[in-house]
């Protein structure tokens, strides 16, 4: 037993502790404790009244037993008795016991509160402090109710001792944190703020904590604290290292107080008063300067205290985000720390730089450290430091360095700690999507992710790659080829099978021309994985198979054989069985046309917040995502995460966080709509009319539907909305179409669905279908900001004669669009006669006080009303000759703008609307098509011929129709597509 230096009073306690330490086993310890508990219980129950000393000793023993981890169910009363003792040490032990072992026994709380009340009123500062400590340690609501109004009085009373003021300040803070409603604000706030001027540094130290907490709720009431804090800080920072005597810590003047003052200043914007601001900037510069001075001591305590102030200063500089000079200096300072021999400093520098990366002033400066950070990711021995490095790489990533960062993170992933793999996977997926310039790189990256860390690739990640491939037709062929190759690996991850199955089911036709990936090869490759997969994957593959039947009629027999097999038709899993039965029937009873409609390519997914990003935010918790969520962003930044179409203006986006600007208030993805079973789809197919025919995706009931806005019936919102939006403005009220309107519209000549327009505020998606001379179009307006759009009114305008050529009926939409929300507008379209110019779409709304307007060309072109016509070669040539007047023909010879791929060309011509006629043109390289344009007034027969010349990279396109303007117009529309 060691000699106890001071205040030794309780030998019995020491003996007991000694005994416990000598116990050889847990059992012996428990035995000894039980013996002691029995002894104490008998003493407490005994007839002999115990004196204060014995009570204190036994209460202390009970406390010790409790702290060893055993339950204590008696002794509370004795402890409360000690509170009213006149002897300081007895009182002290009583309070300690209560502080550690308080329970909400209301009878006891009343007694305790009584004792506290007496001590607070005693005017004995040591007793008062004990009572205040007890309140601060317990901090219960009952105590708040009893004392919250007394403590401010003690705090600001002129005659309170310094130590009492200190305890009172922090006691009040604890009560305020526990039950803010109980702490009355008001008359004493000004006096509390003035504690910042107190002579006693300890009082200031305690008071700053209180003020920092209170001012967050009532910034205006405490506003005067800013200038007081600045002058206090300035005095400390400029003082010599010995001025503050005992408040100097290893040659650093008042480090705790400095840090607290800098924290308080972070509750406010930069001071408006020029003098105060000047003084503060001087302080910040002094701190940065001192960092360059040689250390006054070799002790780590000296450098820690000094750097604690430095890091807090940098936090304040980042918080202000308005002094480019200081931001860059801060970044340089952190850059030095990145290579420091102290692991702690490297860790903190990486962490702090993460927030610097999101400032437009310092983003470039942070980027210069990329090699050091990559090196840290590779060489740091401590996983928590490596994680910070990964976070920083994520934060500093932009289009200029995305490829390097993504490839380093992928390399790191191969050896990364299991605990952080999923997070790294999410980050790589987000960066790859956000900064993809060519989407083949994006596809490669995600497939690499699945290869390297398939187990950690969550659903969100592989759903996302499917969404993007579906929405971007320029990457579909590449994606099909790449997944096909990836699936060749003997052991590939199940996630790869899922992605592969889906993509081949949608776009396998794009690679079917190559005999090495012919339809039967694709099918047998997928089917070779089938039996090793989980039920969900097998369900997905079954959908792929039925899609194959549509894409590749030659596989029908084989696939029907698979579906018909007992292992499918009588599968124990009801989902698999149902799919097998329904798909088999569908493939047998439906005509080719019906099959083609049901199994049409999936429509583009409306863009919303990336589900991966949402997941990352969930994972990191609300606080941790703050660097990402930072709203102090460059408002001119144009890139929004999830924006599928990269525009040139996004190239200089300063950081990934910029992209989240509009998404912070985005609602969570809507719950998946009720799954449409295959049976329902069949009913829809056979019903007439232009009702929307949902396409059957490989997994109709799986969760990526949650990203889709269901084409819901009119929202009830519309009924309540502002009843008087402006009447459709005449053409004279509408601004000219935006410069890129033609280009945007041209993207829709050969397809019906996609994103029509997108900027940093608004996204407009289109879904449409046409039959005969009728069409229906759904426009989806997505508010990408976090603020509401007001007076939102989209309208359709018919310039010139269009009114007599095309009738467009629109439904009104709600005049308010909430931040992150999407509204849908339905357009019913009737083609009355042939037309040339498309209708205009004018969108007007108010956002953040300014009115926005935008005019686009609606993607309704004459070819939408094509009806394909099959005919034999003989008929074709006969009609071709009939249309031989010079004005009936339009011809264009032009250079190829896209790679010349026969499959792609075929797909485009089919999308254009005409039938493709095989075996008509003697040259098999050429394409020939025929169709009839249906209008209400008349029909226009059209023949077309496209002659590619691969050597010259040129095309010749010839159109012949019975109406001269139509020939020219169709020729122009189609020529832009190749």
């Amino acid at each position: 037993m060691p000699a106890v230096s001071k205040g030794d009073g309780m030998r019995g306690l020491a003996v007991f502790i000694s005994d416990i330490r000598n116990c050889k086993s847990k059992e012996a310890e428990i035995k000894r404790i039980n013996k002691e508990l029995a002894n104490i219980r008998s003493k407490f129950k005994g007839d002999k009244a115990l004196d204060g000393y014995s009570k204190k000793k036994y209460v202390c023993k009970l406390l010790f037993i409790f702290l060893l981890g055993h339950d204590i169910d008696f002794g509370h009363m004795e402890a409360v008795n000690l509170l009213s003792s006149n002897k300081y040490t007895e009182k002290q032990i009583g309070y300690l016991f209560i502080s550690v072992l308080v329970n909400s026994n209301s009878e006891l709380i009343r007694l305790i509160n009584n004792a506290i009340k007496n001590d607070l009123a005693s005017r004995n500062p040591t007793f008062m402090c004990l009572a205040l400590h007890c309140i601060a340690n317990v901090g219960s609501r009952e105590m708040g109710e009893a004392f919250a109004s007394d403590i401010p009085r003690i705090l600001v009373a002129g005659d309170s001792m310094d130590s009492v003021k200190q305890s009172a300040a922090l006691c009040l803070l604890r009560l305020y944190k526990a039950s803010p409603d109980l702490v009355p604000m008001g008359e004493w706030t000004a006096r509390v703020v003035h504690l910042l001027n107190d002579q006693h540094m300890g009082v200031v130290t305690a008071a700053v904590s209180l003020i920092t907490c209170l001012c967050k709720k009532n910034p205006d009431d405490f506003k005067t604290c800013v200038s007081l804090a600045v002058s206090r800080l300035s005095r400390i920072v400029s003082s010599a290292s010995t001025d503050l005597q005992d408040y100097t810590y290893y040659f650093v003047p008042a480090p705790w107080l400095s840090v607290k003052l800098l924290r308080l200043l972070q509750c406010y914007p930069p001071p408006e008063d020029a003098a105060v601001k000047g003084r503060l900037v001087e302080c910040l510069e002094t701190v940065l300067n001192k960092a360059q001075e040689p250390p006054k001591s070799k002790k780590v305590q000296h450098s820690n205290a000094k750097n604690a102030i430095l890091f807090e200063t940098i936090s304040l500089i980042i918080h202000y985000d308005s002094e480019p000079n200081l931001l860059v200096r801060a970044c340089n300072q952190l850059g030095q720390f990145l290579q420091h021999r102290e692991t702690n400093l490297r860790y903190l520098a990486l962490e702090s730089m993460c927030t610097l990366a999101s400032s437009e002033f310092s983003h470039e400066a942070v980027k210069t450290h990329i090699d050091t950070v990559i090196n840290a990711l590779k060489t740091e021995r401590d996983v928590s430091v490596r994680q910070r490095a990964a976070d920083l790489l994520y934060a500093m990533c932009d289009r200029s360095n995305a490829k390097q960062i993504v490839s380093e993170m992928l390399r790191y992933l191969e050896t990364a700690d299991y605990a952080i793999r999923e997070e790294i996977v999410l980050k790589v997926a987000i960066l790859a999507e956000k900064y993809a310039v060519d989407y083949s790189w994006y596809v490669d990256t995600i497939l690499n992710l699945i290869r390297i860390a398939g187990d950690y690739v969550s659903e969100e990640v592989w759903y996302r790659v499917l969404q993007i491939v579906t929405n971007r037709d320029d990457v579909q062929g590449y994606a099909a080829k790449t997944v096909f190759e990836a699936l060749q690996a003997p052991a590939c991850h199940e996630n790869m099978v899922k992605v592969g199955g889906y993509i081949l089911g949608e776009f396998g036709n794009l690679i079917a021309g190559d005999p090495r990936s012919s339809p039967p090869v694709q099918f047998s490759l997928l089917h070779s994985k089938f039996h090793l997969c989980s039920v969900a994957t097998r369900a997905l593959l079954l959908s792929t198979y039925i899609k194959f039947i549509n894409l590749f009629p030659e596989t029908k027999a084989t696939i029907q054989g698979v579906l018909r097999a007992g292992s499918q038709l009588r599968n124990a899993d009801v989902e698999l069985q149902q799919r097998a039965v329904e798909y088999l029937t569908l493939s047998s009873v439906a005509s080719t046309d019906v099959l083609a409609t049901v199994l049409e390519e999936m429509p583009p997914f409306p863009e919303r917040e990336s589900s991966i990003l949402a997941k990352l935010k969930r994972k990191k918790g609300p606080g941790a995502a703050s660097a990402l969520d930072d709203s102090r962003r460059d408002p001119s930044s144009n890139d929004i995460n999830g924006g599928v179409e990269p525009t040139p203006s996004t190239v200089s986006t300063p950081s990934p966080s910029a992209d989240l600007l509009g998404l912070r208030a985005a609602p969570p993805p809507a719950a998946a709509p009720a799954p449409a079973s295959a049976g329902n789809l069949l009913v829809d197919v056979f019903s007439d009319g232009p009702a929307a025919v949902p396409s059957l995706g490989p997994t109709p009931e799986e969760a990526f539907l949650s990203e889709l806005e269901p084409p819901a019936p009119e929202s009830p919102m519309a009924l309540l909305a502002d009843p008087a939006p402006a009447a459709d403005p005449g053409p004279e009220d509408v601004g000219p179409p935006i410069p890129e309107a033609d280009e945007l519209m041209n993207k829709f000549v050969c397809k019906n669905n996609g994103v029509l327009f997108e900027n940093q505020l608004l996204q407009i998606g289109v879904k449409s279908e046409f039959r005969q001379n009728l069409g229906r179009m759904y426009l989806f307006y997505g508010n990408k900001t976090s603020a509401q759009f007001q007076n939102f009114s989209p309208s359709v305008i018919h310039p010139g004669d269009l009114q007599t050529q095309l009738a467009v009926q629109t439904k009104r939409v709600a005049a308010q669009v909430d931040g992150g929300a999407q509204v849908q507008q339905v357009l019913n379209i009737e083609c009355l006669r042939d037309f040339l110019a498309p209708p205009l779409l004018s969108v007007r709304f108010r956002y953040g006080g300014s009115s926005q307007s935008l005019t686009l060309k609606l993607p309704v072109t004459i070819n939408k009303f094509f009806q394909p016509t099959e005919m034999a070669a003989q008929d074709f040539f006969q009609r071709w000759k009939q249309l031989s007047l010079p004005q009936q023909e339009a011809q264009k010879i032009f250079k190829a703008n896209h790679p010349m791929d026969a499959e792609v060309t075929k797909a485009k011509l089919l999308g254009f609307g005409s039938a493709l006629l095989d075996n008509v043109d003697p040259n098999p390289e050429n394409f020939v098509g025929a169709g009839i344009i249906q209008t209400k007034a008349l029909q226009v027969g059209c023949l077309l011929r496209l002659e590619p010349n691969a050597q010259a990279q040129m095309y010749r396109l010839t159109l012949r129709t019975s109406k001269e303007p139509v020939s020219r117009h169709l020729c122009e529309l189609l020529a832009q597509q190749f």
Partner: protein
Amino acid sequence: MQFMLLFSRQGKLRLQKWYVPLSDKEKKKITRELVQTVLARKPKMCSFLEWRDLKIVYKRYASLYFCCAVEDQDNELITLEIIHRYVELLDKYFGSVCELDIIFNFEKAYFILDEFLLGGEVQETSKKNVLKAIEQADLLQEEAETPRSVLEEIGLT
């Protein structure tokens, strides 16, 4: 600060101070988890780690680990020096403090901590002022007590 734990290399808890209301069960769970996490770390590793939504700052002094949980925006380095200042206070009070001092005089360790930190915030950073408060209390204690026989002390009377 949300809590402070002192534990030995063997994982025995020597002192626990909680500044947020938690159930006993939750406290035990947190303690178990953190002791395990911190003890598993190697000597040269950095003193900070993310844990749940908190930051853990820890440092080892001889056989004892001092471990603090602070909030996201709190300053790690200054927390490290809170630990050091507390060790200095214990050292000055006990005179080259060792683990046994804290075991046998746990109540003193709590009293010193209460003078230094209150409600999770630094109350008084001056070593002199903190120790003055404690020594005053000791003085009061010595005046108040009369010597007792050894037999009485160990409960044999």
